[in-house]
């Protein structure tokens, strides 16, 4: 005799039948209220909504508070917390070894702008297909609040020390260096950050995403320009982002001239409604100009600031075989004896 089935509500799953829980990571050990935790949440949402198989993801990071975050999303993905400022090289090696994986790297403003500026420069230049997130709070958290190179001129530490050096605008730098997807957001802007991350998953090339992510412990006071209050007041979106993934059949209506529709590498559609009338997302010079102008007004531009959807990425340049190099069998990697004999003959 069977017991009558208890009706259970249908489980919430994404397009590859995975539940949201699969995208979660370990419990965070960062401070309560840290912007980085909100970013981890948006990463979880974006990968769930886009239906990315977590075991096909490589999570990488450098060193610092930000770089702990890969442990807090997608537990079933392999992760690599590498060395300070050098994650780009590890990601480059890993993706060359297995180009079928999707790479996401999490860095911080010190990890990127100070110790890692050299590798950052060359990552942008190479256009390696990697989502590169800078969790940007303008200070070093793990070492108790020293300024980082993205701290604004004149901003203050908790103890009143004034920053007397200009900041590095890593978005402007990334555009200049050749990055093909450059965005800025704020950890408190759920909607915008989620759209940017989903669009990034659809892009083939380096996606440099600078996310203002306040440090509640060391840099959330009056005098800071990376605090929650300051970010809310000075966040100036250059565009409103509508993202339609390739697997959804939705059309977006927009007024001619006010929006730029972009077809992404994977077939998804991105519609950017201009909020800043002079901003042109696909023009390198215009994008840099609008970044500078926003700074001059004392604001910081957010949104997808620059996008070049059809660029050649680094792995394509290498003309690699379709299979991952890591799994090629010996028969395809060790030449036969005839090759050795030929080379030996040349040296006789």
């Amino acid at each position, binding site marked *: 005799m069977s017991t009558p089935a208890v009706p259970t509500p249908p489980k919430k799953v994404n397009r590859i039948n995975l539940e949201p829980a699969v995208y979660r990571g370990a419990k965070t050990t960062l401070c309560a209220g840290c912007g980085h935790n909100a970013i981890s949440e948006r990463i979880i949402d974006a990968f769930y909504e886009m239906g990315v198989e977590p075991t096909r993801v490589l999570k990488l990071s450098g060193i610092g508070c930000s770089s702990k975050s890969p442990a807090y999303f997608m537990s079933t993905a392999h*992760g690599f917390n590498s*060395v300070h400022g*050098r994650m*780009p090289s590890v990601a480059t090696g890993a993706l060359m*070894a297995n180009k079928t994986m999707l790479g996401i790297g999490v860095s911080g403003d010190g990890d990127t702008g100070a110790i890692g500026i050299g*590798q950052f420069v060359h990552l942008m230049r190479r256009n390696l297909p990697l989502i590169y997130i800078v969790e940007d709070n303008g200070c070093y958290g793990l070492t108790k609040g020293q300024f980082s190179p993205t701290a604004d001129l004149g901003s203050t530490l908790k103890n009143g020390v004034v920053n007397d050096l200009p900041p590095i605008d890593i978005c402007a730098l990334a555009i200049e260096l050749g990055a093909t997807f450059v965005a800025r957001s704020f950890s408190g802007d759920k909607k915008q950050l989620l759209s940017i991350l989903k669009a990034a998953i659809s892009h083939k090339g380096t996606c440099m995403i600078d996310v203002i992510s306040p440090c509640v412990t060391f840099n959330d006071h009056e005098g800071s320009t990376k605090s929650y209050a300051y970010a809310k007041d000075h966040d100036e979106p250059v565009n409103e982002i509508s993202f339609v993934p390739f697997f959804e059949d939705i059309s977006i209506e927009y007024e001619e001239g006010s929006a730029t529709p972009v077809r992404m590498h994977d077939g998804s559609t991105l519609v950017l409604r201009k909020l800043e009338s002079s901003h042109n997302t696909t023009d390198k010079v215009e994008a840099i100009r609008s970044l500078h102008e926003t700074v001059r007004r004392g604001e910081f531009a957010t949104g997808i600031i620059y996008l070049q959807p059809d660029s050649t990425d680094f792995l394509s340049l290498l003309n690699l075989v379709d299979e991952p190099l890591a*799994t090629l069998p010996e028969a395809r990697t060790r030449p036969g004896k005839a090759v050795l004999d030929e080379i*030996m003959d040349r040296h*006789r």
Partner: protein
Amino acid sequence: MASSDLLSAPAAVSSPTRVNDFSIQVATVNGSGSQTANLVLLRSIFQMGVPVSGKNLFPSNIAGLPTWYTIRANRHGYIARKKEIDFLVAMNPETAREDVLSLEPGCSVVYDETLKLEQLRTDLQFFPVPFDKIVAEVCPDARLRRLVRNMIYDGVLARLLSIDLAEMDTALTRMMKKKAKALALNLAALQAGFAYASEHFADQPVPLRVERMAETQGLILIEGNAAAALGCLMAGVTVVAWYPITPSSSLCETLIDYLRKYRMDPETGKATFAVVQAEDEIAALGMVVGASWAGARSMTSTSGPGISLMGEFTGLAYYAELPAVIFDVQRVGPSTGLPTRTAQGDIAFAAGLSHGDTKHILLLPSSVSECYTMAVDAFDLAERFQTPIFVMMDLDLGMNTWMAEPFPYPEAPLDRGKVLTPETLQAIGEWGRYKDVDGDGIPYRSLPGQFGPSFFTRGSGHNAKAQYSERTDDYTDNIDRLLRKFNTARGVVPQPEIDLRADAKVGLIAYGTSHWAIVESRDQLRAELGLETSYLRLRAFPFTRDLGAFIDAHDCVYVVEQNRDGQMLGLMRQELSGPRISKLRSVRHYNGLPIDARSITEDIRAHESRKALPPETSPEDAIVGAEEAV
């Protein structure tokens, strides 16, 4: 007797002719195109069956500074550098005077007649050659004269040293087969040099001669860097990341040539490899480590300054247990040092590279053959032990041309190490990334995108399950297991080569390129001092049991190396017991030139004569630095 008689009959001319036992030094200006002439000279002697070696002493400069190329022909097979020069070709006006003054009496000198070197000394044999006049005759185009001028001295030497001109012709043709015009000009210069010497020097016999032998039949000539590159190719390398640095650049450059030629997929025409010229050596090793984490066979090659930059990633790779193959073609340091001179100065640094407790496996090739075989071994060891492997070459080995038997095709299949499979996972039961299942210290790993559970790789403290941990027992368990793994390697790394003589009370220990000078020095010690020696050639670090047994079998053991501080002896002091350490004596050579047999022999002669003194008067020279340390 008239004074002119004295001049016409110098001592050298009356001395017996030496056959196949001399060295030729060619002094030129860097960038003057002398390399072809020098290689033709080397190769033609080699083709005549005579053992030969060539050593290029060059400046850190593109063009304009002095450079010397030394060719040694030796019928006994001694191919180490020889200190004494027997025949000088003085083509560089800037150094000619000093070059001539430093010669031993009786040497022969070929030079540009305008230098008037014959005025400097009366105890040498001088052969003035009008290079400009000859080159103008064979090369009408004045712009090309600089490039063919050097070939004239090859022709002169062929005549004076009885080198078969046909062999030079063959050697030159082989090098220039694709450049018909250049070949014709060079052949003409070669023949013109020969004709000039025939016409003008026929009555001045040189007491040195090349005669055909059969000692080089079937052998190849190759540089160590090319040999190592070939090893990488045969090891199935898939990811290469490098940063240019002398003297290692030609290793990766040669490898790139091989990969482009032999590793394009025949069906798709696509590459089965990836090469990146990185922004620096930090990034180069970062890429290697990232690639090996994702399962690729990856390598980099560098020299000392690059090794300095690689410290942090090496520590990470050791502690997170990631394979990496690193070729260190050693040059003279510290800092920029003498970037175009040779040394074994990175031994101690590489062995413990990184902060914290680390010990790395070093492979110590002494020949081009071992550059090849150890390159293959290095990839297997890196994946077997999941750790960085350093292949410690040096400039002398990497950039100079050496004879060798043709390299063997690797018999063993690639050893990809302990990678988790469904079968191993079932056998293990509860898998942990850093769990010692087999008792050898080597855990099983899973690879991203492939079979098995994921884990988080990190350089911070972790337990057997790869979870973040600051627990003291987790830390010590892990670091002790790494030591166990290192000890397992003792039985697997290339074992030393030992020549044990039953009647020898004295032993010699050496490694790398010092080997060739040791071979010759042992014969000198036997012939000149009546001293029979045993010899142990180290081929890897960690040391094996053989080392202790070898020391036990002798009263006194000389450790010969090419650095100031006796770095390998220092590693022995860390690993050996007191009584064994007390038997060790250090012989060191560190002036940037390849070590020579005479230096070793004289150093040991001095040590041995001091041993004969009563103990109370014997200076305390047992251990390097002992004077300062105690």
